């Protein structure tokens, strides 16, 4: 569904700086500056490789965990059309996850390792999926706000300097913009419906507004690793720039729906032509990122259960493939 501006530096790994000569680093930077795409087999600084593995795998994990809050309403979708749309969306997310894990694998890490890091709690995924989906309107709010924020984050990633990630994002973005429009249309239907439906829509906006703004990551001042990612053209815009762009686009959409953005201090600054908003509760953001959101444990427990329940199935598939391979070798 999207990546988040977490920008936490990867810890550990061998210190390879000595092995990377100034000349290599300069030549690499020159390629980046010339807007050349870096491909899997090209030389790259170890820190560039690690940053990308972290970012792409976090993105993949977010897609996979993101299936859960929406999956929560699949069995209760109110019409056949909505059920089919939501199911197609969840299927897209599984596809994005698969695609992104493959892009990360080009950097020399296996899917098993990445999934292992997710299940052990070592790897991060987007904080937004640790919030619950309590009503059907939340499905609309996720499409509209969460996919909307994802698109803001991801459109610049289509020009990311790493070729496989850039190409993955071009494909992913096409589907995300479709999801965003479907989410908004769902909200519009509710807002034109009964009073109860409109209240449902307002409640969803109230609960998802701030978490959606947090999806862009910490303020620029607190995001210490952004500068390097910008220099490498993994990142093209800062967290705050993208967040502002999202707010500027989304507030008028909320007004069109007849909903109130839950920020009493929100106002449009005509001089800058941007909305000004209240401070974000960063304590909540860091709590959720570090495991203390409403659904962190539930999301990981469900993922672990699926993995554990499937162990005998994967083992059977391997045993069968081995038998077939042995029989073919003997023939």
């Amino acid at each position, binding site marked *: 569904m999207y990546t988040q501006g977490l920008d936490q530096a990867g810890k550990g790994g061998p210190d390879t700086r000595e092995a990377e000569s100034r000349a290599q680093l300069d030549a690499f930077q020159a390629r980046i500056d010339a807007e050349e795409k870096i491909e899997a087999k090209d030389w790259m600084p170890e820190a560039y490789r690690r940053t990308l593995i972290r970012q792409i795998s976090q993105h993949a994990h977010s897609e*996979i965990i993101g*299936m*859960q809050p929406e*999956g929560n309403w*699949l*069995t*209760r*979708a*109110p*019409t*056949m*059309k*909505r*059920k*089919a749309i939501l*199911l*197609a969306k*969840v*299927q897209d997310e*599984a*596809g994005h*996850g*698969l695609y992104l*894990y493959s892009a990360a694998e080009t950097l020399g890490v296996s*899917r098993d390792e990445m999934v292992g890091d997710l299940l052990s709690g070592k790897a991060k995924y987007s904080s937004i999926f640790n919030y619950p989906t309590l009503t*059907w309107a939340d499905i609309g709010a996720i499409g509209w706000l969460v996919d909307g924020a994802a698109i803001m984050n991801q459109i610049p990633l289509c020009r990311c300097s790493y070729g496989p990630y850039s190409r993955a994002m071009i494909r992913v973005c096409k589907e995300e913009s479709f999801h965003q429009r479907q989410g908004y249309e769902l909200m519009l*239907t*509710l807002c034109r*419906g*009964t009073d*109860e*439906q409109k209240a449902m829509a307002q409640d969803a906006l109230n609960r998802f507004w701030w978490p959606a703004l947090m999806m862009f990551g910490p303020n620029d001042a607190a995001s210490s690793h952004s500068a390097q990612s910008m220099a490498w053209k993994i990142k093209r815009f800062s967290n705050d720039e993208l967040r502002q762009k999202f707010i500027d686009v989304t507030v008028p959409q909320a007004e069109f729906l007849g909903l109130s953005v839950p920020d009493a201090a929100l106002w449009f600054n005509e001089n800058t032509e941007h909305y000004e908003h209240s401070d974000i509760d960063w304590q909540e953001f860091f709590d959720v990122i570090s495991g203390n959101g409403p659904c962190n444990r539930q999301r990981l427990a*469900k*993922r672990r*259960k*699926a*993995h554990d*329940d*499937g*162990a*005998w*199935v*994967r*083992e*059977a*598939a391997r*045993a*069968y493939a081995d*038998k077939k391979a042995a029989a073919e070798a003997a023939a």
Partner: protein
Amino acid sequence: MSSDATLASYASRLGDNALILGQRMIELVAASPELEEELANANFSLDYIGQARMYYTYAGEREGAGRDEDDFAFLRPEHDYKNLLLVEQPNGHYGDSTVRQFLFESWYVLLLEALTRCSDEGISIIAARAIKEVRYHLRHSSQWLVRLGDGTEESHARVKASLDDLWRYTGEMFAPDDLDDEMRAVFNGPHLEVIETQWRENVAAVLAEATLDMPDDQWMASGGKQGQHSEHMGFLLAEMQHLQRAYPGATW
């Protein structure tokens, strides 16, 4: 029964099989043993939901009482759903759901083949679309059944138990009722005895490859086609119908 009423009831029953099985598969989202299977499950359940939509829409047209797909899916009482008991059975473990899919799809593919040749154009067009999807589903469930049957000792034992548990729900597929007879007599519909012979042959071949024995002839459960369901059905419907029932008349 008028021919329109026959077609409406028959299409609605086909829709019930597709919807209830699709709904069961949807419960498996985010619970698959592999990411590739996650995609396959979502994709196949979407096919079934799509088929249910076509059948219900057609049933509504033939009925001529103004009911649409959502009226059929969400606003009928349990007894009006005429799906096979097999498709409403809970997912259980991966072996259980694989066997359920395999037994149903082995039958459904043959039924759809026959329906593409029926004299009602509406049903035959839907069947021709659905069969392309279901052939692929059957290939997938057959391959998994073989892997599990001929995988490890544990997987063999598990899937053997699944087969023994679910076999009793297969008899209903081949027992013609008045609606089947009428569909056959008036619209050249499926001959269920012929389908049973083919089904046993096809199933036996896959089971042999999976190193599994065909279960012995035994007592067979029935009632789904008459709207007499298992205890599981009420919960499935309560969950599925929740919003339509809680907010009557709302547009979603």
